């Protein structure tokens, strides 16, 4: 893979990743396109610019760790890992099919270069804490990045982990909330509102940065600020749009857990050309 800090290059990669997301969920006829599209800039900026990792040496001990705590957004992670060279691109369309390495939710048994099997919500920050604390013990520069969903942080364990992180001054962990404001049953504000969200993280002792989760330059700046922040964990509250990049999917709760039809895939790919 060719790492890059150039926002135009990263935007180009995002477009390619989005094409994969739409195509693979369309082929699978199920899956979670909306929350994959909303997290695309976050994931691409991390994998191509921010994180220290090496697809040729996936178990490099000092690598940075990435955990997709919102495991249902597996398509964005699969697309990114395939484009990085961890896994084949040409079988992405076997998503969710029997025997595919691209399981419904990320599964380390099928893709050993994944850091974690995820899918049961609320657990990724705690898991990342174990990795971050191990790195601290080993005096390793490894950092851990955890992407959580907004609906996901209704889970109580998130706040157990939030309390623990700040109290223990775990500054090599960075949590990104993909705040697309939609969960399965509808808009987050109508299900169990999270506001004031940034204030919640601040009150739990986190260095908190609100950022446009689709603005690559802003994300790069926020990740740099996170890495420079000592003695505190950092949370990026990333304001995003569910279904971002495909006009008819944007901000539409339907596409949380419903795949695009064949015609919709064709329309979407035209928009993402």
């Amino acid at each position, binding site marked *: 893979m060719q790492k890059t800090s150039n926002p135009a290059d990263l935007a180009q990669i995002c477009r390619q990743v989005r094409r994969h997301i739409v195509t693979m969920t369309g082929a699978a006829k199920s899956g979670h396109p909306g929350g994959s599209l909303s997290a695309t800039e976050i994931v691409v900026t991390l994998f191509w610019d921010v994180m220290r990792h090496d697809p040729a040496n996936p178990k490099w001990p000092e690598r940075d760790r990435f955990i997709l705590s919102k495991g249902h957004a597996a398509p964005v992670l699969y697309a990114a890992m395939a484009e990085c060279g961890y896994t084949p691109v040409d079988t992405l369309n076997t998503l969710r099919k029997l025997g595919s390495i691209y399981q419904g939710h990320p599964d380390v048994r099928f893709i050993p270069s994944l850091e974690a099997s995820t899918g*049961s919500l609320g*657990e990724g920050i705690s898991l990342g804490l174990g990795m971050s604390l191990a790195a601290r013990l080993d005096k390793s520069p490894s950092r851990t990045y955890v992407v959580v969903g907004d609906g996901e942080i209704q889970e109580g364990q998130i706040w157990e982990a939030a309390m623990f992180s700040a109290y223990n001054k775990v500054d090599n962990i960075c949590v990104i909330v993909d705040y697309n404001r939609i969960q399965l049953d509808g808009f987050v504000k109508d299900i169990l509102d999270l506001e004031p969200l940034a204030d919640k993280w601040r009150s739990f002792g986190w260095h908190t940065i609100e950022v446009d989760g689709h603005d690559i330059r802003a994300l790069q700046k926020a990740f740099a600020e996170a890495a420079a922040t000592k003695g505190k964990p950092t949370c990026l509250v990333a304001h995003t749009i569910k279904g971002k990049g495909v006009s008819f999917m944007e901000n539409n709760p339907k596409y949380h857990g419903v795949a695009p039809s064949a015609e919709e895939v064709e329309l979407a790919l035209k928009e993402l050309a």
Partner: protein
Amino acid sequence: MPAKVKYELKLGPATRESFGKTLVELGRENPNIVVGDADLTKSTMTTYFGKEFPERMFECGIAEANMVAIGAGFATAGKIPFVSSFSAFVMTKGFEQLRCLVAYPNVNLKVVGTHSGISIGEDGPSQMSMEDLALACALPNFTVLCPADDTATRWAVRWAAGHQGPVFIRTGRPKAPVIYPADATFELGKAVELVPGTDVTLVATGLLVAEAIKASETLEQEGISARVLDIHTIKPLDEDALARAARETGALVVAEEHLVDSGLGVRVAQALAKTVPAPVEFVGLTTFAESGSPDQLLDKYGLRAPNLVEAARRAVARKS
């Protein structure tokens, strides 16, 4: 067949104490050992480890789910984490994390539940775990150990540290009767025949092993030759020893400080249904207990040698 041994069954350390002491030894031997606890270090006895290795001790506060998941993260990063709390809490509040982050990806986490069963005593049912073995056995990839005394616990903790894969160890609060000499050796998944016998087999685990030995002595006076098997490994179960016991003695009693509907008893019955079907009687818990001294509770809820003796008589009477 082992020679007949006279067991004194003097009280020795609680198995949680043996766990805490062994953890410190392991910590000295291996810098990769890390330990998590949830505000019960002075009860689970991880306090010994925490005092000697504060940098490798992670106190999680009263947040078991977070503790289990942090432990899974440590294991993923190459450490050998032990997490501990009362069995009643770590196995229930941490169960989903044990399922998805530990069992499913086969992560190298060691879980030690203390204060198991009703012998925690005065604290009462909210603190008593009667279903922890069922929960642990329901997790694929887990090895499940229930040592009876100090020596067995020291072995279990050491075995867990050396094993690559998830392990649950069940320990207790009260002082445990000494069954094994300090130099006894164990093999994973191999039951220990403590007392030879030909008429019935008493299959026991944990605190009930000592009761089974006492029961065998009473039965001997009645002319019933009772074999005693210590099942220190609940999973994988020693199906060969059980089949042999069924073939050679023709009837069995299973005794455990656990719900009879979901513990060792049902596993033994399953094993025998596959190999040598035989009459089996079950000694264990059928409902929530209450406050009381451990001895009072074990008496009241029927987990004593006389209960095993009665069950053995029933089992023998059912032989065709």
